Each structure stands twice: as C-alpha cells, then as structure tokens.
C-alpha cells in the first residue's frame, strides 16, 4: 500500500514536472500606449491583437504550443519605451516584439532591439528612417514613399495642376508632404506645402491663405482629430475646392466628428471595412460583436501586424531563436491580411500592399471603382 502511494505521488510529481514543459508557451512582447494621451490607439491595438491571438491559438498555435503576448504600456514616451525594450530583451522567453505606436518611441526603442538582436514589427511607425535602423526593424504600414507617388499620379490623371498641401508638423506629416510634393512636381504639377504644429485647433488663417492661392485641390496629411476640424472650418469658410487625403484619415471618427463637412473628400486606403472579402467580413463582424464599434484602419493594422508575427513564429517552428524569428518575418510573402496582401521586401524590410481609392459619400466611406 505504502509503495502504491509512493508510486502515485512519484507519477503525479513527474507529470507535474513534465506537463508544463510539454505545453510550454511561446512569448512575444507588445508595447503600445495603453494609458496617456494616445491610449485610444493602444486600446485598439490590444483589442485587435487579442482577437488575432485567440484565433491563432484556437487553430492550434505553433505546433500545438500556445503563443502569449506580454503587454507593456509605453504612454508613447520614448524613455518608457526604451525601458520596456530592455525588459523584453532581458526576458529570455520573448522571441519577437510588436510596437510601438508613434515613430518617436518606436525609433528610440529600435536602437535597443538593433543592439541586442530582437525582431521589432511596428504596426504604424512610418518614420522613413525607422527600417534603416537595422535589419531587426519591420513595419506593417504602407509608407508615404508608396502612397505619395500613388496619390500624385491619381491627382495628375484627374487633370489637377495646382495643389495646396496641408501637413502636420511631425515626422509622419513631413514625409507624407514631401513624398507627395516631390512626385507631383516630377509629373509636371505645382504643389506648395503649409505645415501646422501638433495640437492646432484653429485652421481658419491657414485655410484663408490657401484660398488666396486658388488651388485646384487640397491634399491633407494629418489624422482625424485635425482633419475633422479642418474640414468643418473649410466648410464654414465656404471653400469649394476638392479635398484629397492620405490613408491616415480613414477613420469612422472622422465622419462622426466632422459630420457632413467631410462629404466629398477622397482618399487612398489599404483597409475598407465594407470590403466583401470573407476575411475582412469576419474581422469586421467579430470586432463589432466584441467591442461594439467598427474597426478603423489602426485596428486593421494591429490585427495584421499580429497575424504576420504569428505566421512568422509558425514558420520558424516551436523552438525558434530570436534570429530565426527575424528571418521568418523577413520572408513574409503575400500574407492575406485585412489590409490587403502584404509582402516584406527582404532587403529594405518595407511592406508593399495593394492600395484602393475611397470617397466619403452620404456619411460613409465608399470604395471607388478601379479604373
């Protein structure tokens, strides 16, 4: 009897020791502004990434092993982002990192990942130098180097000759405006750029200035907070000039805040919540059901970034090192995401995606037919 008890105890102990090893989890880190002034973006990333992760783990994970995301809040503060970077690097279980949101913190922490050798995939960092930090940096956002020329050609084809560009004075706005202006001028058009500082609320003086130059179109490089205000004030001033924008204004909030002043604006996008494709429908419906709102472009970007990372983990296998995860990420080809098929250039680590044209019509974003 005694020996039986002993055997049972031994077996139980053994099982207890073996069991966690067999079901060992794979860890990745995700840093985003979950508190602070930009927490609305961090929250959306967490929602989208959680959905993607649950779907992936339910489908068997990486060879039966589940993936766990370790969340850290950076408040979009470069010094906190760097501390998180160190924390993730110290944690030997973590094999890859997603985030951060804004380019500043993403670049600051990028120096850490470059030095210590950890793949970093930001869903949104659009700074032109971001992927130039090292071979460890990836992003899942079309850069303005792709969007700028695309939009320049679009406007040129419509016969627009003279464009006024209004851009947010930050790294993103600068690259958006410069890329557009350069390509538009190469195509023989004329463009002038007017910058405003982050936090601007009154655009009347800048709009009056634009009105005086009498452009054929106005090109907006900004986010929905500024975009909604600017378009409302333009309407109040009675401006009739057509407005165009980068994909950054694709957010349901723009219409919510801007009302009918937004109607008629045209923009490019990689994500369309009304796209009839099965994967986009499933994503939009599931997101609405869980969080009670329509996903915006940022949600889609976070969802796909997480998906790309998880697919890379799967290809790298259950015991992959950080270097193997990086190589698997670099080999991403035609990932069928909700923001279009995504391929990473193995040399520059820049994503290329299919772009679509959109128009705001009757308070809705409507995809324009491809010409």
């Amino acid at each position, binding site marked *: 009897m005694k020996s039986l008890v002993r055997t049972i105890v031994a077996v139980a102990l053994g099982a207890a020791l073996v069991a966690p090893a067999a079901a060992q989890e794979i860890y990745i880190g995700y840093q985003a502004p979950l*508190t602070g002034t930009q927490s609305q973006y961090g929250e959306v990333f967490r929602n989208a990434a959680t959905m993607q992760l649950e779907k992936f783990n339910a489908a068997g994970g990486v060879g039966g092993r589940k993936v766990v995301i370790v969340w850290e*809040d950076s408040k979009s503060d*470069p*010094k906190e982002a760097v501390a998180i970077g160190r924390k993730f690097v*110290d944690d030997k279980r973590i094999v890859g990192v997603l985030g951060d949101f804004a380019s500043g913190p993403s670049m*600051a922490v990028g120096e850490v990942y470059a030095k210590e050798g950890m793949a970093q995939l930001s869903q949104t960092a659009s700074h032109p130098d971001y992927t130039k930090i090292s071979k460890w940096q990836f992003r899942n956002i079309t850069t303005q180097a792709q969007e700028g020329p695309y939009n320049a050609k679009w406007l040129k084809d419509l016969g627009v000759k003279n464009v006024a560009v209004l851009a947010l004075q930050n790294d993103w706005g600068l690259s958006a405006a410069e890329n557009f202006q350069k390509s538009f001028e190469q195509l023989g058009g004329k463009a002038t750029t007017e910058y405003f500082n982050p936090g601007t609320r009154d655009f009347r003086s800048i709009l009056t200035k634009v009105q005086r130059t009498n452009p054929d179109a106005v090109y907006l490089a900004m986010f929905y907070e500024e975009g909604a205000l600017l378009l409302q004030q333009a309407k109040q001033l009675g401006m009739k000039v057509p407005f165009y924008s980068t994909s950054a204004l694709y957010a349901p909030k723009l219409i919510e805040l801007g009302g009918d002043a937004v109607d008629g604006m045209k923009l490019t996008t990689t994500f369309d919540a009304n796209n009839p494709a099965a994967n986009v429908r499933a994503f939009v419906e599931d997101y609405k059901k869980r969080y009670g709102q329509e996903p915006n472009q940022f949600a889609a970007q976070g969802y796909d970034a997480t998906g790309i990372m998880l697919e890379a983990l799967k290809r790298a296998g259950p015991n992959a090192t950080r270097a193997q995860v990086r190589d698997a990420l670099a080999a991403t080809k035609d990932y069928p995401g909700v923001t279009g098929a995504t391929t990473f250039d193995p040399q520059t680590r820049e994503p290329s995606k299919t772009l679509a044209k959109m128009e705001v019509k009757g308070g809705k974003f409507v995809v324009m037919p491809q010409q």
Partner: protein
Amino acid sequence: MKPLALIGTVLAVAAVTAALLLSGSSYAVQVAITALIFVILTASLNLVTGTAGLMTLGHAAFYGVGAYAAALLSTKLGLSFWVTLPLAGLVTAFFGFLVALPTMRLTSIYFAVATLAIGEMIVVAITNWTGFTRGPMGIRGIPSITVFGHEGLTVNLLVVLAATLVSVWAIWRLTHSYYGNGLRALREDDQCAEAMGLNAVRLKIEVFTIACFFAGIAGALFAHTSGYISPESFRFGESILLLTMAVVGGLGSVPGSAIGAIILIVLPELLRGAGNVRMVAVGVVLFLCILFLPKGLFGEVSALAFARNQLRRAGLGWSR
C-alpha cells in the same frame, strides 16, 4: 573636511557597487540611467525653484537644448562624448543666460509664465527648424559613450553615475553656502535682500545660468545614452514632471530632489504589474505624499539640518 569626504566616498562606493550588481538586468540598468539623469535635472531645477524661489515651467526645454547640442556636435562635427558633454552644458548655460537677461526682472507667476512661453518657443523652434535640427524627424545615430575603447550599458551607467555624483555635489555645495543663503534670502523677500546689499537681478541670472548648465549636462547624457532624440522628449509635460519630482522630494532640498526623481521614475516601472491603472496608482501615491508630507519626503528644514551637521563636523565656516 574628513567626515564629508568619508560620506561622499561611502556613497560613491555604494552606488558603484549597486550599479555593478544591477548590470545583470539590462532593464534595471536602463531605469537606473533614466532615474540618474532626472536626478541631475531635478536638482538643477530645484536650485532655481526651491532655493531661489523662482518657479520655472520650461526646464525640459533647456534639457532639450543640451541634448540637441550634444547630438548635433557629435553627429555633424564628429566630436566625442568627452568634448560634447561640457560643450552641451556651456551652450545651454549661454541660452539660459540670454533668456535670463530679460526675464529676471519678473517675479512669481509672471516669471513662471515667461519661462513657460520660452520653453514652448524653444521646443517649437527645434520642431520647425528642419534644416538644422531635422525637426520632428529627430536625430539618430548619436555615438554612445566610450571609455578607453569600452562601451555598452554598464559603461553608460557608470559614466552617468559619475556625472550625477559630481553635479549633485556641486549643486549641494552651492545650496549650502553663503551663496545659497543669499538665494534663500531672495526667495523670502527680494526687496529686503536688496536692502541688505545683495544684487538680486545678478544673483537670479547667475543661478538660472548655472541650473541651465546642469540641464544641458543631463541632456548630453540622455542623447549619448539613448542614441536617438526627438522633440517630444522635451515638451511641457516633462517640465511639469520635473517640478513634481522637486515638490514630492521637498522644495529647496537637494537630497529631496534626488529622492523625488528616483521615486517618479522607478515607481511607474515597479507598478507595471497593475496594468491600466498604474498611472492612477502613481497619482494616488503622489497625492498621499503631498497630503501627509506637504514639505516633501525630505524637506528643506531636514536637509538644512543635515547639511549644517555635516559642514560643522567638516569644520567649514558656514554653519557658525
């Protein structure tokens, strides 16, 4: 001089030992580096706001001037850290001097608003002067600190630690001297101080310039340890953070500044486990601190008693 030197040595040795012990965890080292840089910043702000009683709301902008000076000097002219460190301090001190000339005739809230405006102007200038500062793109590829060919996180920590000890020592000696007494007299009643023969405007300009020098040193340390800087690190919010550190530690108290800076950098990191409510928790801790210790965790009175005690035992004349 002996007991003071002894305390200094013990502190330095303890700090170096702690630094070496920490080096196992690069996360802890990173947090320690940030905390030490903020110790310099808070101690320098405290010299102006705590000791001389001039509330400044733009200190982070001078920290930014130092960081950009170091970053530009090293990336454009290829100067090494050992040259850019003092130069960043001097450039920032010069900026501080220029700013001080017109503003030092202001007192109380008017001075606060003037520094707020100047701080914003500096950050907006850094953001918009794209040709020189690369504007919102920031500056990357700032060379890291090298000591006899060695570099890395531990080297960074030891250098920042040494710079912090020297800076805090200098500020401590300034605060607890006849000069420091003069500053305190200004704070209590500047007209009375002038009647006693102190040149109030000159004293204010001097102390502001000195504080900016140390902010510049902190900026250079930040630029060279992080490798990338952008304007968002020097905005108004950081100035308020520095002010909070000084108040929580104890206005007018140098040890208080160090304690306040360390708490406000380390506490949010320790509370990471609390998830979304971590900043709320930090707020609650600060609120309780102010509620129960309105003079700060290590208030000026205790700091003065401590300094007096040390200086008397060292045989220095000030306390007699």
